């Protein structure tokens, strides 16, 4: 038989021979016992291995004391409670609006009676009106100011509300979709879609805090069972987007919005539900209308994951990225409320997010999120906290 190659010798030395399969492992062991040449090479490779370990041992930091686990647990608990605090702030914001509207109404009444002579404030300009009236700034207004600074969160809040409603609607929908036939990872369940679409406007604020932190796990775990079709995206508009490792970063990853005509893409809830009935806790993408029959085709990342998108935001395009370093990656572009875009790049397992150039100079925030099936890179002109929050609402998109 042929001699054993260096890689296999190192696998043998590392005790990882069985990872090559039991037949191959047995063949190699047998060969090493009978071949003097390979036994000698094994010794040589063993020496390289030991010397490399010794070199690396020269860079071990002193004093590897392990901080108490409770410290880590407390930090995680604090980080997890942040969304709850945000919900409280939202409530405070709502209270301040009500209070300010009431104040405005009262002042308006006074002016019509000729008592104070102030210009009646409009509900959306409460703070300037109060100021111009020389009134003291109320604590409620401070909260309002704080919230107004994160006005960019509007799409995120909308997505959260959509997500909460989608969960509720999905319980009804999934029952219907279970009976719906699956065909090539594609299912028709228009009534279910319609039900979910109906649920959209009825956003329930109280459910926002319920958004769960393990959405990635749930989605990734669920998507493993999706029988989505691999293959090129149909109707792809920006197929000319070819990533070239030599090109400047911004040219590589950002096309002008005008270059990306809206696809009117709609995502489907029940299609995915029926295709992946074993996806517990998976979140649900929402679409306002039923998609065109021929436009419905799930996109997969090498058959392992379904690209994600923020429910409630228009999907401008879904495209595959090309080029050696990003092969198999999928880019989803969504329109934010401000007319700006949210870019989501899904990298399959094994891809290096570092291959995507940084965007630190163009004013966008970039978030790299490890998933159980690859990576997600999210970019938008939003504060980091808001981008994190919006990313937590992601749900698989199908087309």
């Amino acid at each position, binding site marked *: 038989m042929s001699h054993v190659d260096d890689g296999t010798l190192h696998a043998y030395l590392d005790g990882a021979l069985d990872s090559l399969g039991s037949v191959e492992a047995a063949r190699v062991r047998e060969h090493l016992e009978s071949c003097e040449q390979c036994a000698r090479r094994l010794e040589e490779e063993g020496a390289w291995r030991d010397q490399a370990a010794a070199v690396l041992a020269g860079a071990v930091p002193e004093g590897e004391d392990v901080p108490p686990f409770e410290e880590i647990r407390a930090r995680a608990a604090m980080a997890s409670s942040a969304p709850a605090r945000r919900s409280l702030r939202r409530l405070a914001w709502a209270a301040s609006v009500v209070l300010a509207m009431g104040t405005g109404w009262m002042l308006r009444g006074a002016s019509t009676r000729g008592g104070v002579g102030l210009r009646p404030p409009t509900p959306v300009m409460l703070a300037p009106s109060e100021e111009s009236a020389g009134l003291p700034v109320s604590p409620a207004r401070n909260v309002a100011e704080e919230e107004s600074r994160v006005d960019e969160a509007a799409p995120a809040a909308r997505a959260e509300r959509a997500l909460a409603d989608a969960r509720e609607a999905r319980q009804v929908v999934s029952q219907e979709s279970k009976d719906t036939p699956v065909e090539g990872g594609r299912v028709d369940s228009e009534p279910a879609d319609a039900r979910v679409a109906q649920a959209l406007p009825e956003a329930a604020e109280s459910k926002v805090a319920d958004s769960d932190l393990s959405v990635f796990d749930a989605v990734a775990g669920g998507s493993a069972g999706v029988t989505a079709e691999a293959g090129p995206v149909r109707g792809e508009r920006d197929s000319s987007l070819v990533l070239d490792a030599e090109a400047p970063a911004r040219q590589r990853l950002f096309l002008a919005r005008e270059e990306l005509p809206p696809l009117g893409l709609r995502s489907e809830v029940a299609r995915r539900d029926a295709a992946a009935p074993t996806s517990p806790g998976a979140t649900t993408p929402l679409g306002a209308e039923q998609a065109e029959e021929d436009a419905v085709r799930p996109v997969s990342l090498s058959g392992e994951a379904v690209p994600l998108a923020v429910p409630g935001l228009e999907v401008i395009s879904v495209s595959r990225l090309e080029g050696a370093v990003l092969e198999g990656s999928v880019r989803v572009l969504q329109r934010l409320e401000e007319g700006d875009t949210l870019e989501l790049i899904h990298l399959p397992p094994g891809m*290096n997010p570092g291959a995507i150039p940084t965007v630190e100079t163009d004013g966008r925030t970039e978030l790299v999120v490890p998933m*159980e099936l690859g990576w997600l890179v999210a970019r938008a002109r939003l504060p980091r906290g808001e981008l994190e929050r919006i990313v937590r609402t992601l749900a698989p998109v199908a087309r």
Partner: protein
Amino acid sequence: MSTDWSDVYRQLFPDLVRFLHRKVWDPDRARDLAQEAFVRALQHQPRRPRPWLFQVAANLARDEARTVLRRKRHLALLKSETPEPTAPDPDARLAERERWDRVKEALEALGERDRETLLLWDAGLSYAEIASQTGLAVGAVGTTLARARRRLVEAHRERERNDVARG
């Protein structure tokens, strides 16, 4: 099956620090990043903690490298890329620093994937876990490690020879 995170933490924290230290070359920062990786793990509760933690750690180290690069652009005062070692007396600190520099340069002589594979192996990941994280086929991990080990040792020797020649 629920994960005993306390146990995972006790077992993996030193490995994670070692892995991160060879990427950021700052022991304190490596410990900070390792803690951050565990905080995120507790929030996300991944089913397979070890590969997840190392993936997050690699990502954190990459972000850290970007931050350092940015800082370097703006701060002319930042003279050295490698932070001060932690050894107590000056001679030991100097020796430790030289040792770190040699290892760092030797690692930099490797290709990115070879270096990542070697560091992941040294941190205790299995061939299957390394394959999953680096995108290599399981059968190619041994070949990559063979090449990386040889190159690391050769580069390290070369650096030692240069040090001796310089006196």
